[in-house]
């Protein structure tokens, strides 16, 4: 099997779904709020 195919397989193994990206982004924001990087979010 070629290196290209192997590389393609490795890439797809690490590809995250939209759901997972959304969860990670939300957790990152929550963490920034927790450590005080965002003190107040206006609405």
């Amino acid at each position, binding site marked *: 099997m070629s290196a290209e195919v192997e590389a393609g397989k490795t890439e797809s193994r690490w590809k995250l779904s939209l759901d997972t990206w959304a969860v990670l*982004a939300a957790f990152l924001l929550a963490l920034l*709020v*927790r450590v005080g990087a965002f003190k107040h*979010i206006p609405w």
Partner: protein
Amino acid sequence: MAEAITVPQVRPVQPALRFLRVIPGVLLLAAVGYAGKLLEQNVGAYAKAHHWTFPNIEYVLWAIILGLLISNTVGVPELFRTGVATYEFWLKAGIVLLGARFLLGDILKLGGVSLILVAIEIVGSLAFMTFLGRLFKLKPKLTTLLAVGSAVCGVSAIIATKGAIEADDEDSSFSIAAILALGALALFTFPVIGHFLHLSDRAYGLWAGLAVDNTAEATAAGALYSDAAAKLAVLVKSTRNAMIGFVVLAYAIYWASQGQAKAVGNKAAFLWQKFPKFVLGFLLISVLATYHFFNKDQVGALANLSRWAFLLTFAGVGLRTNFSEMRKQGLRPFAVGAIGEVVIAGFTLALVYGAGKIFGW
């Protein structure tokens, strides 16, 4: 082996380039959403100052209307489309952040009730949509897609099922168009019916979460009623979403037994692959909030971040809805979907009334 080597011909798009492509559309979502927020604040004040009788239109509806106007008049230019499609991302991030406003006890209490209602809704809706599909002589796989779209969670469920049962692209386009058109109608009809029937926030939130198909539309339909209704609609809709893997697995096994789809190998892996991960994120944030990982101000900040994420989502709901594109898909699947949705809306409303009587709401 030669075929294997020729497979990766598509040039991968660099992550940085992919990110740049998203920016114009996200800016458009933000502009439309923020314009909706400004309109809510200013139109009401202007009407009041000039002694006009004008209904109080929430930013949710303004953002959707503005999006619909753009999409159905000038259209969304190609440059913005990739970014506009990120509205699903903002929706899911917003739901996870909304978890901070739920205490775990409330989720277990409401989630338990909604789980029972969701189970009844899914079984009833699947059975009725299958009956309707046969009555209207729709293709069996198209019927399956419409049934899953109406019973579980709209477009995501249709896409997940399409792959699992090897349905045609045409069938999935039909189903998605019907579900999206009916979701758009639900946005305008559900709040009116809710107010007409004087439904409480709890009853309305339960109803919207049970009956509106797409998560974005269910969230918007809840938000159009009240903040409390939106919270409950999201919780109930997420419970429905959590069922997607089981329903898709059941259909995959059925179609494989008919020799019309691939057999499912590892069922646990299949369920995990189809499970909406944002539901887990929502639960985890709620656990953290319950155990005071965030203080009161931080919970407020997370709630506002969730609102901003939903603002982009609501703009996206309007921008991606194009009625002329939907008309092209034909009338019959739409008719089946419409009849099904009306019956499901009535059925779920009866369920909510019944639950209200049993649990004394």
